[in-house]
């Protein structure tokens, strides 16, 4: 019943999905631009956690054929999602940096960081 691995799996996947939902909530509901950018980062973090979670094997080993580990191929953690998540983190970092630079520009231009005050462009 209280299997350690089950609890771990459910909590990791659950928290990844919860992070994505929290991020989407922040982007959709919050009025402050900084909070919207934070929401975007949280969505990214959720997806990254999901990526790491799919490659995880409990009691697994690093995917390196080191001495003494040659026979444990099936226990090895999948390295591809980890490589992908590293790339995705870098991309997310760049996007956040550009977003924050734009927020500074918007704040200087409009004197406010609230979405309600920035509506020069309409549909």
């Amino acid at each position, binding site marked *: 019943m209280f299997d350690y691995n089950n609890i771990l799996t459910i909590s990791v996947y659950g928290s990844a999905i919860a992070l994505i939902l929290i991020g989407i909530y922040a982007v959709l509901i919050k009025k402050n631009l900084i909070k919207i950018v934070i929401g975007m980062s949280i969505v990214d973090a959720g997806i990254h956690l999901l990526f790491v979670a799919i490659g995880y094997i409990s009691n697994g080993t690093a995917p390196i054929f080191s001495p003494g580990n040659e026979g444990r191929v099936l226990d090895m953690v999948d390295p591809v999602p980890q490589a*992908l998540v590293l790339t995705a983190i870098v991309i997310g970092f760049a*996007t956040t940096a*550009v977003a924050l630079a734009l927020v500074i*520009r918007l704040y200087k231009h409009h004197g406010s960081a609230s979405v309600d005050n920035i509506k020069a462009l309409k549909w």
Partner: protein
Amino acid sequence: MIITPVHYIAVPLLAAFLIPLLAKLHKELVRIVPGLVFLYFLIISATLMQQLPETGTISEVIAGWSAPWGINLVFSPFSGFLASLMSFIGFLAWLYSYRFKKVDFAQSQKYFILLMMLVTGSIGIVLTGDIFNLFVFLEIVAISSYSLTSFYSGRDSAEAAFKQLLIGSFASAFILLGILILYTQTGTLNMADLATKVHLIAPSVKISILVLFLVGFGIEAEMFPLNGWAPDVYSQAPGPIGSVFAGVVVKAGIYALIRVLYTIFDVPEITHLLIILGVVTMIIAEVAALRQDNLKRMLAYSSIGQMGVVLIAFGIGTNTAIFAALFLMFNHAIIKSMLFFSSSYLLYNSTTKAIAHLTGIAKKMPFVAFIFALGAFAIVGLPPFSGFWSKLYLLMAAADQKMLLLIGTILVISVVEIIYYFRVIGKLYYGKEENNIEIQKPSINGYVVMGVLGAIIIVVGVYPDLVTGIIQNAADALSDKSTYIQSVITENIVR
């Protein structure tokens, strides 16, 4: 030196890294080096396209890891056609913006590096054979386009860029989730390998992956209702960047969508969805264009409408229809970038970019007004310009499938297009001349770029056979999935 597809990616990345260093030697190198890179793109395209009939689809392995494990670049007739088109538009955009507005040194350094990265990322999307690599290139395009949109600080450009960033980061989140689910189901990221393994995925999971990709790439391809960013971005970005968005970036978005739908997922039902999405996109965009009083926004909505037409053509899905779709993409790249180039000069000193500002300007700027009118005639599909042929092929493809309602809708929407383009031309030529308008004489580069594009429109209109051969090869390559898979995954793989 042997020219291979990887030069498309490696050379501009190296140049972008070196430009700030070269700028210390001579300031003008900041402008010249990107032009040399674009020229090299054209050389690569010409060489590879010439080799293509002999070698067949070129699949290049990167860093010694063969196809399903490593990243590979695929230069098929389809990818090659789009890559050459993008190189050409990128080169013209560089030539046009070489002296476009006297921006100072630091700004021009940013501008030209970002322009180069924008085109490189789009070419990367078209060439790559790995779906995660495609995502990375998409992000290169996205980040450089956010920065370019907000290039002028005097306008509301930061707002447009922030909107684009917000929508774009959702797009990338959706695509990333789609790749994640695809990887958990098949254990591979190579697109050719995915195409052979996609039948292993349960139908319900397949649908969710498809929806994630459709939304993600649909945002880049300006598909309704995901195109809210486009009019703002087109109206706020620097003029030549508008042409690059219409001629290069959107094409890359369409390519990604079509590659995923046609090569990876071979779902026949999706084609009807594409037709419906295309029709809705076309109708909403063209009607929205009708009520714009800002010229750039009008062109942006027209661009969205054209992308709707391309989606319809891909949705019909026969070989003739794919041919028509690629011809439409070619024409849209040429004509819409010409319209953006010429409208930038028409609106040079206007802060509002309003159509009302243009009354009688044709007498002061006869060449630019003529180029604009030529583009407008071509894009609505009047003979003898190139736009006529692509529309004709599309209608013929639809007629083959007995889609009479669709033909009627496209024709009615063409009338709407004619109305709003001719309203502008009427203002240009027959409006009362206002004397207090300050005009900007185009630079020599501007004349050359607009003249070249105008000549292409007329020449292709008179002799469509000049391009139909290449486009037909591209269409065949897209519909022939097994050749693509075979050329990527060679027989030396042990399973």
